[in-house]
């Protein structure tokens, strides 16, 4: 293939540490699942149900890993060119926009396909256990490849539309997460999912969607908008598709406060004011609107779980939103200053490292806090739902306590993920590096324990109450331990659930303090503040 963009991307991409790490994490996680699930002491002929269970667990793990890892590789594909100022150079070269788009798409997608292919031998192991047909292994492989290619296409489209990597990453995650959840649910529950015909049909649909996305990317590259110097104020409400945000109307002003009319008052932290009024909406409202629309639509869906007496599911969803959105705003807080060239200006003022750090921390926590409050709309409805408390076997007061504790967990998640993002922003030189590190860290502490819980509970005899204690770093297990869902009782086999939430709160708040202290030390040392 003589596409110069494709060749360069693939060569540089496969040469990077990130590619190697992703391969190790992907295959390593799947191998760990197989190792844990592999029947002990039996030579051959394990029960078909167990074999099938291992196969499904592997499939679900692969979908989850692709959903989490793939956006990291594709979302920065075009935005990094925009940030480095090299996109214009590419577009004015003899390479056509379609070739650029095709090269980028193929390089991103092929790497992800390599990733999936490298894990297929692990998947194939289930075939030898029996109980799983060869056609089912092939069907799952087709599903995975189609899904991977689709995620790649969505990520690249976001990269073509957004101005910055962090924006593209957030949009990709918010778009791919629902698709990933649907894929996981289908992989878990539908027998028809494992038929090659179903896989072929879905692959066809995915190809059609990919072609449409490709056309969108080409159109975007053919006429790239000159947004580099376009200030937020110039964005008219008419420019804002789907949802409008206007800072002089309530409740928009709550999320996007108006700038002070006059000079900043004495004693105010100028960094906080700058972050709240300029940084979060610095390049327009597009990113925040995309987040709002995405999360609000999903909240309506998640709200049904709350009304149906499944509080851990709803609050788990809120935790997930926070875990996805917080790094997008925190992980570039300092790298952005460096990349933009305002870092030196700030460092030579009389602001202390604590002023700068806390100003940024407060601003991001405030924004995410307000966003989370917006997402709590279903909570009062839950209280109004007739018999909702009774469904969960609670009094209204009990339900209030349950919701209150869950909220504490969500806000603790918000604090720790923001503090982690800020710390990574000081450790890494580029926004993309800081963001990948932050997402990896929060998923390691928040998602991996849940996956480990599910796998170990299914394939070992360790009591689930003991397993839950191993996952005290996960807000999802913390929410689950608060109760409020009969399914959770079944999960813990009616045994007393340990107060994981209490440990989680201590861990998250302590972790926030540690991350902030480490950030402060780093900031002070790096900038030689007296």
């Amino acid at each position, binding site marked *: 293939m003589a596409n110069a963009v494709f060749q360069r991307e693939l060569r540089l991409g496969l040469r990077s540490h990130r590619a190697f790490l992703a391969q190790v994490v992907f295959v390593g996680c799947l191998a760990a699942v197989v190792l844990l699930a592999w029947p002990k002491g039996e030579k051959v002929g394990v029960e078909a149900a167990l074999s099938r269970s291992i196969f499904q667990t592997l499939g679900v793990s692969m979908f989850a890993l692709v959903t989490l890892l793939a956006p990291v590789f594709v979302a920065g594909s075009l935005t990094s060119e925009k940030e480095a100022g090299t996109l214009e150079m590419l577009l004015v070269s003899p390479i056509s926009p379609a070739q650029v788009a095709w090269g980028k798409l193929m390089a991103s997608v092929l790497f992800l396909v390599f990733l999936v292919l490298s894990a297929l031998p692990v998947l194939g192991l289930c075939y030898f256990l029996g109980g799983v047909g060869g056609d089912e292994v092939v069907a799952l492989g087709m599903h995975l490849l189609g899904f991977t290619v689709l995620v790649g296409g969505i990520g690249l489209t976001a990269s073509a539309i957004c101005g910055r990597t962090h924006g593209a990453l957030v949009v990709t995650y918010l778009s791919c997460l629902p698709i990933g959840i649907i894929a996981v649910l289908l992989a878990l529950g539908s027998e028809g999912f494992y038929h090659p015909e179903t896989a072929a049909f879905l692959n066809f649909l995915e190809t059609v969607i990919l072609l449409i996305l490709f056309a969108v990317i080409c159109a975007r590259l053919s006429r790239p908008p000159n947004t580099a110097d376009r200030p937020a104020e110039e964005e008219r409400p008419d420019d804002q598709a789907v949802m409008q945000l206007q800072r002089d109307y309530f409740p928009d002003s709550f999320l996007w406060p108006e700038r002070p009319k006059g000079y*900043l008052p004495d004693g105010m932290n*100028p960094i906080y004011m700058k972050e709240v009024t300029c940084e979060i909406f*610095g390049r327009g409202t597009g990113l925040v609107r995309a987040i709002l629309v995405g999360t609000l639509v999903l909240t309506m869906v998640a709200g049904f779980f709350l009304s149906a007496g499944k509080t851990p599911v709803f609050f788990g969803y809120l935790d997930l939103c926070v875990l996805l959105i917080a790094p997008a705003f925190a992980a570039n807080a300092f790298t952005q200053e460096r990349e933009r060239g305002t870092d030196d200006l700030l460092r030579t003022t009389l602001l202390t490292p604590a002023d700068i750090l806390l100003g940024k921390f407060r601003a991001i926590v405030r924004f995410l806090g307000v966003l989370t409050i917006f997402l709590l709309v279903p909570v009062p409805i839950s209280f109004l739902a007739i018999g909702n408390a009774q469904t969960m076997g609670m009094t209204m007061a009990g339900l209030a306590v349950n919701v209150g504790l869950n909220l504490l967990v969500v806000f603790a998640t918000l604090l720790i993920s923001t503090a982690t993002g800020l710390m990574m922003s000081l450790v890494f030189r580029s926004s993309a590096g800081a963001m990948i590190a932050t997402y990896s860290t929060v998923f390691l502490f928040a998602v991996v324990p849940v996956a480990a819980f599910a796998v170990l509970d299914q394939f070992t005899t360790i009591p689930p109450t003991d397993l839950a204690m191993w996952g005290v770093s996960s807000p999802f297990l913390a929410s689950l331990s608060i109760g409020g869902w009969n399914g959770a009782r079944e999960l813990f086999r009616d045994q007393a659930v340990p107060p994981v939430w209490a440990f989680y709160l201590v861990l998250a708040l302590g972790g926030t303090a540690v991350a902030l202290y480490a950030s402060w030390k780093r900031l002070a040392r790096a900038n030689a503040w007296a």
Partner: protein
Amino acid sequence: MPAVEIRNFRKVYDGKVAVEKLSFDIEAGDVFGLIGPNGAGKTTTIRFLATLLDPTMGDATIQGFSVRKQVREVRRRIGYLPDHFGVYDGMRVWEFLDFFALAYGIALTRRKKIIDDVLTLVDLAHKRDDLVNGLSRGTRQRLGLAKTLLHDPPVLILDEPASGLDPRARVEIKALLRELKQMGKTILISSHILSDLADLCNKIGIIERGQLLACAPVQEIVGQFSERHVIEVSVLSREIELETRLATTKHVENVERIDHQVKFDYAGTDEAIALLHGALAREEFPLVWFREVEVTLEEAFFRITKGEVS
């Protein structure tokens, strides 16, 4: 006491020496030009003085305060303009200055007047309400200068303030720097535009491969080459023959040929120059001109440096 004193400054990046034992002084009220080829160590030196870089060795003082140990005191006394700096999207010119004025701890009661004053000084009063991210490069540079002046620092450290500006903007910046000089500010400025520095600076430091090759008043640096004449000869043809002829002539050094022109240093007297001119005419070289070239700062710079980077 010098306004700026730098002693044995050494900076090593990953085993590579960027600056090697640099020492010089800048007296109060001086305009000191730091010049050198790309990669010579100018920005490293400037960032060290601006408290942004930990030295591997050495120290510097600004009005007696140590750059390493009394960072806050130094920051109160310096105004630093980096070679490249960004602005915050969506801020207006006065808001940008208000933000930095508060960051320098300037009280609200004084802030408005100070912002108006610096805007007038840099001739940006009419752009007060413009958005900073819509400003042209030259205007943005003037905004940067306004920002460095907010807390009225006695020492200004300016890294390439005129780089990338069009001729008109360069002239405006130069005029502004002259005004600041008259206000008694001590200015350390790095620039590639040597003719600008020659007009503006009273002292020059030439740095190459991290080492200070010369540090003296401009006239002194230029003057060290005035004991010899720099002669330029243009011929219609036979330039190679002329080059060879001159290379073997007594008192002639550094013969350089570019197209039909040959340039050389001549250590003889005026009479000897007249004799050389007569000799070349007699040898029937087709002379277009034979003239003495005035040594400029640029000329001196090229003679002192070798164009090497560290």
